[in-house]
């Protein structure tokens, strides 16, 4: 019988700054001390690992060094750490190599927690997945569409926002960058209403083409606008679900929607 993910993780833990404390059939407990870049001594986290199929989920045994729950810090409401999004990057722990990959994510996650606590905001927000599966799916579409418009455009994704407005009873979604409108999309038929305006891609100034004649950019701008709008709404629903459950903000982050709700 092949070793279980828990046995594999415990087996390689010594190479990853972790020490097994308990190894049961259904869970393991490890002491993990993520190394600092400087080699300075840091905190040791006592973590519980549970198996979910071939994957492993991890949480603090008791929420001592981390909040019990904080979506902004990627700690689910059951205390488990959301190290990655299974749908986009599945990670089965089947051997030492995949366990090492898992440990890499865990150790970086714990280091990022230190920065988040010090700065009161999650570092590299642009890199993190959106909150909740629906929002994350929209995010994937938005990122792909933004990439099609060029690397510079992709880099500015976090500066984009959308605004929904009805004109003559027709719902329209405006795509804005730093508050300035780029394009407008008709929500009813998912149509780019400004397709004859100059494209917004990285090469727009050089090519001088309208969006409808600039490769596939008409579709990219449309998809991007709709996906960003969907992302925003999905995240609002995500936090509404938290609020409905009566989950309160842990107070460790400055820009947390739950904080606003409770204020």
């Amino acid at each position: 019988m092949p070793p279980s993910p828990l046995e594999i993780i415990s087996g390689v833990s010594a190479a990853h700054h972790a020490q097994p404390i308990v190894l049961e059939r259904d869970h393991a407990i490890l002491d993990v001390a993520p190394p600092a870049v400087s080699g300075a001594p840091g905190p040791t986290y006592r973590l519980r690992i549970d198996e979910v199929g071939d994957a492993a989920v991890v949480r603090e045994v008791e929420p001592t060094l981390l909040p019990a729950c904080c979506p902004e810090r990627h700690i689910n409401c059951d205390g488990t750490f959301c190290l990655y999004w299974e749908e986009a990057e599945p990670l089965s722990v089947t051997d030492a190599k995949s366990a090492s990959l898992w440990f890499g994510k865990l150790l970086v996650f714990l280091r990022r927690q230190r920065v988040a606590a010090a700065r009161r905001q999650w570092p590299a927000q642009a890199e993190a997945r959106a909150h909740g599966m629906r929002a994350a799916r929209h995010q994937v579409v938005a990122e792909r569409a933004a990439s099609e418009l060029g690397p510079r455009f992709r880099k500015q994704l976090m500066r984009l926002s959308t605004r929904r407005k009805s004109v003559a009873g027709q719902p329209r979604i405006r795509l804005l960058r730093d508050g300035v409108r780029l394009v407008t999309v008709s929500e009813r038929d998912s149509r780019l209403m400004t397709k004859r305006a100059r494209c917004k891609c990285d090469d727009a100034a050089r090519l001088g083409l309208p969006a409808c004649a600039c490769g596939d950019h008409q579709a990219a701008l449309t998809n991007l606008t709709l996906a960003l709008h969907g992302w925003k709404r999905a995240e609002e629903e995500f936090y509404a679900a938290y609020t409905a459950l009566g989950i309160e903000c842990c107070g460790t982050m400055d820009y947390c929607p739950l904080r606003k709700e409770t204020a």
Partner: protein
Amino acid sequence: MGNSWKYDRAKEAIDKRFEEVKTVEIVDYKRDMSLESIPTNKAYRVDGAHLYADILNMADILATTEKEGERSHRRTLRFLNLHQRAVHRILSRCDARRVDFHNQRLHSLVAKPYGTEEEKKRVCRAVAIGKLIIDVLADTGDDDEDIPNAKVRIGIDSGLTLAVNNGRNGNREPLFLGSAANLAAKLASNWRAEGIYLTNGARKAAGIEQTEEGKEGTTPLTADQIAYCQDVAKLEVGKDTIVKEWRQDNKDNPIGSFDFSRPTPPLRSLNISVLTPGNSKRMKAMSVYADIDGFTKYVADNIDKKAADVVRCFQVIRSELDRVVSSDFGGRRIRFVGDCIHALLMEGTAHTTYDQETISTATLCAGALRSSFDLALERLKANKVGVAGLGLAIGYEFGPMTVTRLGMQGDRVRCSVSRGVLASEDEQCRCNGVETAIGQAAYDAGTDAVRKLFGKTRKLSGLDYDTAVDSLEAEGDKVAKDAAIAAYAVAAPAMAKAVEQPFRPFSETP
């Protein structure tokens, strides 16, 4: 080990330094003692009047051109050189000790006549010397070279200070710790009006009417009060003689033109002791100021009963700050200014400066300075040295920098002046003991990661080395990423691999 800070390395260096000052000797300064080359583990209690002279219009000269080019630097250095020569002549003719020329700021000590009972004479002498400096520098510009006269503000206080060894490697000048030196400096540099300003303590010692509490910096001595001090002091020399000698000296030993070349990085290897006006350095670089916050009060609280601890604390901390700048980050200390270190950092080649690399590296260095400072306090405490109330204020700014030596041949003083140098000091001044501030030019030219880290206030609390690396690395800063990967490659290879990839944590719907 390039451009990184290691806990173990810092701890070892701090402990080693502490061993050197484990036994400290404190001696009362007497007339036949020399203040040159004081051993690191020795300090003298010196009673004297401290005089600071601040040339108020230096920043204006730096700012006269729109672009901070060679001409602007040449003019500023010539301005300082002319006036420093004149001040040097005054001090040597009046038997006062020059402690340091820190660009536009002169610190000197009037220790004679010796003895507590002679304080009045010392303060009056300091006032008379201050007046002479003002008068002479109002006449030592250079019309041919369009160098204006200097506008001067003088600050004076009197009292007991500790003279300790300043710096390393042949820097023989002493440095004075204590409120007399500090208050005189504040009186000279915290306001912009010309004149001579005394603390109430110094006024009392001189027999001059005291001012209202808190008005010492805005109440200059009157002409009558200055005349009274001049009568008591009876200086052996007057303005006309000094100016005449200064003119003759400039004729005999012309300053020559300032010629610039670029130094080759690392700046650590820059030999400042061979620089002259004709062989000056100029480059785009980072100027860093790190000041021990609360040290004046610490000295005042401990100078009587725990003076040895003051020396230990001072030598351990600043030696470690110097080590971090030069050893860990390849930078160059320009000077210690009291309890503050001024240093330059540069990444690049002999031909060009890599702007963003320099700014990111300096950000890591600023974090490392705080990490080392905190560790030094921890180690001092472990060795039963009190460190209550001490902090570190750090400011840095990027831009064109100069390094040269000014003054008389055989007695030249190092100088690094530019808008960036002044701005970095200003940034440091707006920080408390846990804060780090980055200048506007560095903020604008830095990576997105640097800008995100500091935010619009350009100021952060508690930025240590690990926080700096982790924050910048997370935001994709290449210098920080390389530092993290290099550090983890051996200690945690799985982490090094994870850092190389985008890290995309998720949040599940409840």
